[in-house]
């Protein structure tokens, strides 16, 4: 193993200067770096532990989560202000207790591994990412996830989304609870008396990494809930998963349809 150089910046500006160095990458919790065996490929690590991006607060109706918050930090903080949040459901199922104490929001959003449990809910919540550095700006999560070059010489500062009351359903397709998810399904919905007022459906782990089922969302909006026929709704909804070790594309698509039906039924009631 070659020698890796560590840097310990005390400020955001210092960290931004350091990540411009060739072969140097940011270090948050370190789980993604170790899992991807990146140590063999890099020259240095910039530890983000001492810069002020570990926070969680609500402001003007928005929840703001600093990049260094761990999954368990987010679960505990959200339980105080939004106990029904889909993020609690999703993150509670991610990895394991000790790993949830190390995996950070910033690291997960930057890497977006295919098994990620955080990206589906964040996309469904219409979250935005605040980037600092070369590409400093606030990005829609979907745009950010599709444009990996944005991460160049840039740091994720925070993720934010509106604090809103949604009915939610989250499913991770895995063979055992600790297994990486083959795909995840996130559903957020609002009812207005007997009508579907709003709905968002996001699938991750598919061939296109993630997909928001906007056509289905539009079809459902404004519909009378009592007249929804879930079997009809799902029969033509197909997602390309590509075959993976969890199962064939056909199997995963069938599982997705079953869970989509189950999720819609649970949210709106059969």
């Amino acid at each position, binding site marked *: 193993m070659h020698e890796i150089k560590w840097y310990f910046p005390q400020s955001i500006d210092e960290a931004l200067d350091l990540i411009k160095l060739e072969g140097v990458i940011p270090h948050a919790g370190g789980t993604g770096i*170790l899992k991807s065996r990146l140590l063999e490929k890099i020259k240095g690590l910039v530890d983000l532990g001492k810069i002020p991006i570990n926070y969680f607060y609500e402001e003007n109706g928005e929840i703001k989560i600093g990049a260094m918050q761990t999954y368990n930090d987010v679960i505990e903080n959200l339980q105080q202000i939004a106990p029904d949040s889909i993020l609690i459901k999703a993150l509670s199922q991610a990895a*394991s207790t000790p790993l949830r104490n190390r995996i950070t929001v910033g690291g997960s959003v930057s890497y977006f591994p295919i098994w990620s449990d955080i990206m589906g809910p964040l996309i469904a919540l219409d979250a935005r990412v605040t980037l600092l550095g070369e590409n400093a700006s606030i990005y829609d999560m979907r745009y950010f996830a599709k444009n990996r070059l944005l991460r160049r010489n840039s740091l994720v500062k925070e993720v934010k989304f509106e604090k809103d009351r949604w009915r939610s359903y989250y499913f991770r397709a895995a063979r055992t609870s600790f297994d990486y998810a083959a795909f995840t399904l996130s559903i957020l919905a609002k009812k207005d008396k007997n009508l579907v007022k709003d709905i968002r459906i996001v699938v991750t782990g598919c061939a296109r990494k993630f997909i928001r089922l906007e056509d289905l969302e539009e079809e459902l909006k404004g519909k009378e809930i009592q007249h929804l026929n879930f079997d009809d709704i799902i029969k033509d909804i197909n997602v390309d998963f590509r075959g993976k070790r969890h199962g064939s594309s056909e199997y995963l698509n069938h599982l997705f349809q079953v869970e989509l039906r189950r999720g819609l039924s649970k949210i709106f009631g059969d």
Partner: protein
Amino acid sequence: MKGVFKINGKERELTFKPHHTLLDILRDNGYTEVKEGCREGECGACVVLLNGKLVNSCQVLAASVVGSEILTVKGIGDLHSPHPIQEAFVEAGAVQCGFCTPGMVLATYYLFSKNTDPDEKDIKQALDGNLCRCTGYVKILDAVRLAIKKMKERENEKV
């Protein structure tokens, strides 16, 4: 690299390589109660409490946690003065080969530090990062329930 760590209440200056994990430096310096299992964060044999939080020491780069407080299973009790959780694991017959036991004990310790009245769901979630290849987990779950009972009794005695 050099760094000071507070391990089981005692400050120690340790020397390590930049790519070493917390697991590496603990075992290299005599803390062999921290077991090396999968090195991928899946088995939980290497868990320690890092500043009060349960972590897989194989998934923590040592350089990033210099100055931290680390608690291993020997830090909560030993043969002569066992912690109620350690007693419970013995009494419930929850130890077979013993390789996973330090992790199971620390996961229970962490659970009780967060929640003094856990239900079955809480207990199972607290142990979700710890694998045992010998038992069917039945005795381990018995041990955790017994440990919780013992610790509650101890808390009540204090009051």
